[in-house]
């Protein structure tokens, strides 16, 4: 399957990937509305970690043998056998956060307001995930692995 990877060498921590992720997962597809008026506010499923000059755009890597799928108490986290994508069934997720505890990348975003786990879905319906498509520095790559 294709996955998104960060090239740390050229990631400058501009966080545009977060912005586009947030917009992509907003109900209103309008930047200003999404950020200023939408309630509950849309949340990015990716995160930029920074320390000094190191910045890393981090998201779910759709692990084989994903620890989150194994740990999920309700079965809400499941792997789609065709796409290999790890999905959260939002109806079954109760926001217990067990998945957060086992993820080595801390790639699951807790939506504490709606009590459900959010994660990168590689922008279903888009040819290229929006974080990759909109990275001004080509620091994100979408590659077949």
């Amino acid at each position: 399957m294709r996955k998104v990877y960060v090239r740390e060498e050229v990631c400058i921590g501009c966080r545009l990937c977060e912005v586009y992720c947030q917009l992509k997962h907003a109900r209103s597809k309008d930047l200003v509305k999404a950020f200023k008026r939408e309630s509950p506010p849309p949340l990015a499923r990716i995160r930029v970690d920074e320390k000094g000059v190191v910045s890393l755009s981090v998201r779910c890597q759709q692990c084989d043998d994903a620890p989150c799928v194994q740990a999920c108490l309700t079965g809400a986290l499941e792997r789609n056998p065709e796409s290999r994508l790890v999905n959260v069934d939002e109806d079954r997720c109760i926001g217990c956060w067990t998945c957060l505890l086992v993820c080595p990348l801390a790639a699951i975003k807790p939506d504490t307001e709606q009590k459900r786990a959010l994660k990168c879905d590689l922008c279903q319906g888009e040819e290229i995930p929006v974080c990759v498509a909109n990275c001004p520095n080509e620091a994100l790559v979408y590659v077949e692995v």
Partner: protein
Amino acid sequence: MARAEKIKYLIIGNSAGGIGAAEAIRGVDKAGTLTIVSDEPYPAYSRPLISEHLSEGRPLEKILYRPADFYDKNKIKTLFGDKVAQINFSERTLELESGRTIAWQKLLLATGGSPIVPGMEGKDLKGVFTFTTLDDAKAIDKFLKQRQGKIKAVVIGGGLIGVSATEALLKRGVEVSIVEMKDWILNTILDEEAAALEAVALSGAGVDIITGHTVARINSSLLGEVNGISLDDGRSIPCDMVVVAIGVTPRLDLVAGNGVKTNRGIIVDRRMATSVPGVYACGDVAEAYDFVYGENRVTPVWPNAYTGGRVAGLNIAGKKAEYGGGTAMNALKYFGVNILSAGMVTPPDDSYEVISQRGDGIYRKVIIKGGEILGMVFAGDIEKAGIIYNLMKDGVNVAAFKEALVADDFGLASLPEKIWRARLEIPASEEASIVPPVELPEEAVIDE
């Protein structure tokens, strides 16, 4: 006597461990006969969701652990609502209480734990419940529906099950007192400080918490119904119902005196194999490797049951797989307080180093010895806890960056480059062919 077919894979227990094993077996062997026996009459459901069943009436279909067609799709024969009476390990057969005899080639014991109910006076009265199965939740629901007016409950035991029952009862309008023997609630999974955050939330919701005491007896009305409890100091608390939530103990009855090596639970090796050839165990009944303590321990938590079951299933189906180990790990979300903990939560002596940070409902704590993380408690801000848990699981020496672990801005970039690269890098073999070479910036750009 005509003997039924010999089942290739027989699993006793239809919860996280049993399902983990069944899925692993089917990943290897699509056709070999596979049967799951369970004394519960339901398809696998998410046990932690029984509190949602009680609090909001969430039906079985909405708490299923796997889709309704799971068993059919995976060609799993189910014997639900039937109990194993005894196992004959030398003959490789077992008898069900319904009278059937089943022969098996490989057996997995995923029988789980049963709630501990101490032999106190009044324990069999009408209105005394436990809270570990869907039937327990249904029984409480039925009881509440039959009663009029304000109902008062005493929950014995302030652990995870007790707090979960308390939250559900509160949502049903029941007034709740928790009686906890130790000095603070949730004492096996949280340190005093994190538990205090939870206690404040509970008290704020109107729960009366009594610590440092035990229930000496449950008092009866003339009708044989619960009408109160008496504490060890003689105090009485009137109530209409009692939930006994002291803990669970491995269900060892099927292996007692049968040659299967046990301690607190059934002892298994890293392949989840018991001392009897062809017999495996996992989940709450098993005593499996704990990577924090470096020895076998009973860690009755859902994720370890699933993962242990998966390892057992792979080995049962003929693959070689090793259990990397589990440790006590818990995620709490009760009363809006989010807490994650794993491993040790309180250092056993002062040879351990504790690094912590706190403020405004946020609490982060890591316990370190010999440079390695042995325990963690994260409350309020839990987003990065997974990074810490995996450093602990992988036995990474964190001495050089330990202070960063509890910092506000902690993230993958706070770790040594070698570690974050290993977690984020494109798998090496594919890299060269797919990714165009990165044009690296100049070594340094210095203003003239």
